[in-house]
């Protein structure tokens, strides 16, 4: 009984922290129709600003909170200025991708400034606890509850009774009409980002104090939790976000009590997927209304793709095959081999995100499935690699399609959220299903690649094998795009309502696109596993998904040649210039931002 109350208090406290995050996300979605993926970064920055203020300036708590509030608000305004305002009128997906780019840049900056190591965040609150019914409540619990309730009340007053609050609500209801009535929509957006981010930053500070622990990796989880809470309450619904957050906090807390802490996130994502599937409008959303007719070509930037002549492509391919005969430098060949492995992933993603228009943020999950499938078949069953690698491709194709299938009914940003969640679920299942995957230990001594007893160790041979697979996959994909199937996928991307009205079953074609794309991604993961000889649940993390997406956008969405070029540029160039790992992520983020702003059609053009 006592522990039940403790778990309830804990759940409500965590729920309050989520609420501070989710309310901000809901406000931003309300005025700009955007899920701000950089929200978790502001939360992290809030925590670190608070840590710096306490550590270096020895500020008392109220001053610390004020500093965090202002600093986070400024970061929020910066996000609006960079990620949203310049992109008005560009493709629907552009601001979403921009906030992802911003989040990677901000997270990386935090890591560079404060180091990736976790830090303790002390607080000067008195350490008394009030006993209630066997459980207890501490000062920090009360503070968090107070900040949560206080912010909600202030927000209510702001939205209900101030002039700017009226403008915010007007913009949320109808942006165009508000604009016509003289509302400065940019100022409204800026104010909303400031408020939302100030609350998000406070949330980060409070959670850091609560666990006495902050680290740069907390950003991504925070974004996801805020999104889950929002989906539960109905995206863009502020009161719904609060209720959803408290529910999420309680469910997590009780879940941990029953099953243990490693399951915490699994609950959140299971809840997310259930809600997306059965109640996509959340607890408080109504029946969905038919989406208004889109502007032509709003999903991706229309462009004329650059078509290299066929002989040039074959000449380049020939040159790539001949390269190891001319230059034997293992470092260069190793780098290019990594590029070929990335190209397999990029080809897969460009089909799903570019051709079919189903942006996937969980592509690393497919790599992980392929890698584990091949590794387990090889290690546990002793099967040879020439069988396990293609088998892993097929398993990834089947399993990946099954996992994503419930999300196919979703549209627009929702599919992005769902794929993100599925990517995380894959990693969490790998972590928790110890009897199969060996859990956090990972799989060791995975045998090297081999063909009919001949082990492929030499870097030249690995290079040729990977290149041959990339060329094969690219040829297949090109052939597929030229068929009725490619036409159908592109029709779904351009206008799914019109596509349905012409007899195209969306789920069938999305599933086939994922099945085809899943194979390549699975093979890439499988080969990687055999090359590394060791994998664990973190080998393929969300950064890999972002990298793949950046490659695809760099090459041009849906563009087969572009995907390969994107992989070579983004994997090859940093390696050749020997950029260290932490700066690499920063560069990917900046490249993504610059592309979205200045060349949304990519190098080779969208197809």
């Amino acid at each position, binding site marked *: 009984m006592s522990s039940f109350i403790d778990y309830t208090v804990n759940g409500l406290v965590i729920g309050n922290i989520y609420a501070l995050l989710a309310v901000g996300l809901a406000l931003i979605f309300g005025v700009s129709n955007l899920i701000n993926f950089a929200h978790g970064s502001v939360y992290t920055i809030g925590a670190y600003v608070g840590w710096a203020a306490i550590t270096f300036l020895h500020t008392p708590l109220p001053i610390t909170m004020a500093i965090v509030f202002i600093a986070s608000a400024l970061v929020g305004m910066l996000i609006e200025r960079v990620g949203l305002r310049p992109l008005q009128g560009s493709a629907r997906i552009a601001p979403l991708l921009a906030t992802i780019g911003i989040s990677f840049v901000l997270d990386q900056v935090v890591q560079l400034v404060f180091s990736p190591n976790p830090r303790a965040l002390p607080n000067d609150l008195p350490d008394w606890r009030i006993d209630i019914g066997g459980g207890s409540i501490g000062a920090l619990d009360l503070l968090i509850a107070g900040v949560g309730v206080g912010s909600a009340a202030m927000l209510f007053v702001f939205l209900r009774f101030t002039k700017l609050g009226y403008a915010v609500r007007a913009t949320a209801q109808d942006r165009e009409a508000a604009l016509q009535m003289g509302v400065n929509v940019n100022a409204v957006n800026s104010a909303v980002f400031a408020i939302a981010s100030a609350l998000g930053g406070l949330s980060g500070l409070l959670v850091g104090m609560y666990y006495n622990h902050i680290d740069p990796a907390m950003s991504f989880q925070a974004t996801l939790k805020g999104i889950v809470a929002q989906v539960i309450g109905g995206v863009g619904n502020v009161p719904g976000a609060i209720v959803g957050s408290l529910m999420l906090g309680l469910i997590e807390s009780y879940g941990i009590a029953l099953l243990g802490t490693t399951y915490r996130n699994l609950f959140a994502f299971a809840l997310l997927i259930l809600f997306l599937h059965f109640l996509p409008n959340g607890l408080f959303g109504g029946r969905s209304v038919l989406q208004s*007719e889109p502007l032509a070509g709003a999903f991706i930037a*229309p462009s004329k793709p650059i078509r290299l002549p066929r002989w040039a492509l074959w000449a380049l391919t020939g040159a790539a095959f001949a390269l190891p005969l001319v230059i034997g430098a293992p470092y260069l060949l190793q780098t290019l081999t990594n590029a070929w492995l990335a190209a397999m992933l990029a080809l897969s993603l460009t089909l799903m995100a570019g051709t079919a228009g189903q942006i996937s943020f969980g592509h690393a999950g497919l790599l992980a499935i392929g890698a584990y499938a091949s590794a387990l078949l090889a290690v546990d069953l002793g099967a040879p690699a020439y069988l396990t690698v293609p088998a892993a491709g097929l398993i990834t194709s089947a399993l990946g399609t099954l996992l994503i299938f419930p999300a196919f009914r979703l549209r627009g940003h929702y599919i992005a959220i769902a794929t993100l969640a599925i990517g995380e679920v894959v990693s969490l299942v790998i972590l928790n299903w110890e009897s199969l995957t060996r859990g956090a230990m990972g799989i060791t001594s995975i045998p090297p690649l081999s063909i009919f007893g001949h082990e492929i160790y030499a870097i030249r041979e690995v290079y040729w094998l990977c290149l041959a697979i990339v060329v094969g996959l690219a040829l297949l994909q090109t052939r*597929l795009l030229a068929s009725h199937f490619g*036409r159908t996928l592109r029709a779904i991307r351009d206008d799914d309502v019109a*596509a349905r*009205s012409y007899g195209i*079953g969306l789920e069938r074609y999305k*599933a086939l696109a994922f*099945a085809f794309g899943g194979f390549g991604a699975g093979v890439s993961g499988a080969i990687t596993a055999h090359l590394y000889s060791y994998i664990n649940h973190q080998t393929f993390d969300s950064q890999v998904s972002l990298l793949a997406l950046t490659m695809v956008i760099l090459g041009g969405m849906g563009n087969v040649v572009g995907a390969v070029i994107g992989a070579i540029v983004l994997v090859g160039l940093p390696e050749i210039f020997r950029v260290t790992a932490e700066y690499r992520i920063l560069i990917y983020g900046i490249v993504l931002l610059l592309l979205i702003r200045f060349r949304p059609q990519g190098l080779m053009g969208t197809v």
Partner: protein
Amino acid sequence: MSVLLEIKGLTRRFDGVTAVKDFDLTIAEGELIGLIGPNGAGKTTSFNLISGLDRPDAGSIAFADRSIGGLGPEAIAALGLARTFQHGRVFANLSVEDNVLVGAHTRLRAVRPPWPVIGPLVELALALTRPASVQREEEALRAEAREILALFGDRLTPRLDHPAYSLSYANRRRLEIARALALKPRLLLLDEPTAGMNPTETAEMQALIATLKAGGLTILLIEHKLDMVMALSDRVCVLDNGTKIAEGAPQDVRRDPAVVEAYLGHSDVGAPSQAESVA
């Protein structure tokens, strides 16, 4: 003449506003029905309900003696119903020719074996291997797409390879109709085909619709240009505030006082109503 479309008691409410209320309509094979009414009368909502994009709150829709009330738009399209959209929903990044070919999607036979479960995988395999039968079908459809585009004279044929986003507004409307024709529909729903067209272009469109009608195609036409509706329609149905206020031959509907009132404004605005003045 047999009945092709039969709508009874169709009702759709949005948050307290009744967009379509108790709407009845019957269309016989080969007829052209004009659906008119002021903005917001419920014309496009009716199209969305008939084509399956939206679900009615009450009422039944039967197409070729089959109830289609609960079916999705894919299934309804497969039964032979094609529609165009009010503001032109073309596939922006697809070429003109490909847009028309998507219209023929429901007619693909060789590439889309009807087998359950493995059908989709076989479709994928056929798309990759493209045996002779698949190639023949694709070529036949391509030839047909060009014939359909030729119906629009020189408007679309020279732009066969152009992406649809590069087309003018009027050409997008034409392309939508071409795409709908590629479905070989039994019933064609046209939502304001001449919106944004100048008088010459409108006359061209009118001639084209007349040709389609003469060819035996059944058409339900939403249009604001009344002269055109009156010239083309066998019968005209008038909606106002979601309710059918008149239906009949064009010349009768034109003189119907309720229709005149709906279009010219309500006579009781600012003056005692007729009922009161009689009393």
